Structure formats: structure tokens, C-alpha cells
């Protein structure tokens, strides 16, 4: 089996960053936390870590098997 893996680090990091920003805003708006700047940075950092995990730590998706002509 080939060991070649295609990764999407930019896509994952951007997704994690957006996830952190949106979660920190929603947490503030719905009164879940009192967001100080340090708290917001912390939530965003968690999102970025999730992005890194998604890009480098998750097992690779297998490509779909090509249909075999019978």
C-alpha cells in the first residue's frame, strides 16, 4: 500500500481558527463565559490546535476503490 498522503494544513488551520473565533463570540453572547481577551485567545488557540490535529494526527482517508470491469 502506498504511504503517500496528501494533507491540507492551511484548510485545517483556517477551519480551526474560524471555529475558535465563532465559539468565543457565541460563548460571550449567550453568557457562558465572561470573555476577557485572554479567554478569547485561549478559545481560539484551542481551535487552532484542533486544526493541527485534523491536519496531521488524524488517520488518512482511503480513496474510494475504482470500479472493476467484470
Amino acid at each position, binding site marked *: 500500500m502506498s504511504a*503517500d498522503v496528501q494533507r491540507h494544513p492551511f484548510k485545517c488551520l483556517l*477551519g480551526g481558527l*474560524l471555529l475558535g473565533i*465563532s465559539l468565543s463570540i*457565541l460563548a*460571550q453572547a449567550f453568557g457562558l463565559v*465572561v470573555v476577557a481577551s485572554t479567554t478569547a485567545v485561549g478559545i481560539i488557540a484551542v481551535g487552532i490546535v484542533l486544526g493541527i490535529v485534523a491536519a496531521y494526527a488524524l488517520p*488518512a482517508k*482511503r480513496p474510494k*476503490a475504482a470500479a472493476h470491469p467484470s
Partner: protein
Amino acid sequence: MHQGRMRRSIVAVAVVAGATLAAAGPAGAASASGCSGEASSVSSGGEPLDQVSAPGGGGTRSDPFTVEPDGPVSWDGQSDTVITDGRWEVTSSLFSTSGTFDNDDEDQSSEGTKKMTDYVPALLVLPGTYEVDVSVTGEGGSCAVTGFIEVDASPLASAWVIASLVLLPLSLLMLITGRPEALGALAAPADTPPSPTTPPDGGAP
């Protein structure tokens, strides 16, 4: 009292501060040094909402001073000393603003009424509880107030919340589709040479 000049000078500081946040902070566990004051908020419909005093009660994390974006906040404050030729600053995670003043009349007290929407468009107000720091420094002394305010508004009326509700599923989708992909693990080689024993036309005579 010289209202006109006050609003332009040091007192303008307090105006901004007291308007929504400043006066809100100085209470109970909230800290206030070099000055004192009171503030009261009114709902956008004109009903009394909350009040706070420094030193006094309210304006803490557990009991924040409640304001509505469109509701006026009336305040009055006094500094312990005459402060002239200085700078004022209001900082919070919602917004920050600052300015300078001269206070040529050497006033030690001021009062006023302001609304949050005088400084932040209603669409950009993010509801929730905020810590607010207000500081005034200048010749003759300084004043610092730290407290908490609660912005009482519908979350769904905020552009920030709407944008976040759109971004949240989008970001999750990016994380899911951004997973690594194995290349060619099961795919057949693209350029497989034809077998030398089988002619391209199938070997028909």
C-alpha cells in the same frame, strides 16, 4: 458648575466611562481609587433598569451593572483631587476608547447621560458580561475604576452572533474535509503497458 467646559474636558472622560461602563464598575468587589460616583441605567422603554455606586454595591462579576444598548445611563462622579491636562481611557473586550482633556476650570465633579449606541452601532453590540477598566491620569492625580457590566440585548440582533452561526458549521466542514488523504492506495496504475502476447486488435487473422 460649568457644564459645557466640563464635558469637553476631564469630565468628558467620565462621560464616556460612566456612559456605559465606567460608573458601572465601581462597586462592592469592584475597585475604584482616586474618585467616586454613581450611575443608573434605564431600559430602552424608559423603565429603571439598574444602579451602581462606587464605593457601594453592584458592578461586580456576580452582580454586574445592567445596561441596554439603546437605554440611557445617567451618571455623576467626583475626583478626590483636581486633575488637569491629562488623558482618559476606557477599555473592555467590547470596545476601547480614549482621549485627552484640560479641565481649565479645575472642576472635581461632573455628570451626564449617555447611551452605548453613542459609541458602538447597535448591530455591532455583542451582549454578555464584560470587565471594564476606566482610567484618568493627569496633573494633580489619577482615577481608576474596574468593574463589570452586563449588556442586555438579544444575541440574534448582533451581527457578530449571526456571522458566528454561519462560520461555525463552515469551520467544522473545513476541519472534516481537511483530513489527510491517502494517495493511490487502491487505484490501478494509469499507464499499464499492454501484454506483449496480446495484439491490440485481439489477434484476429
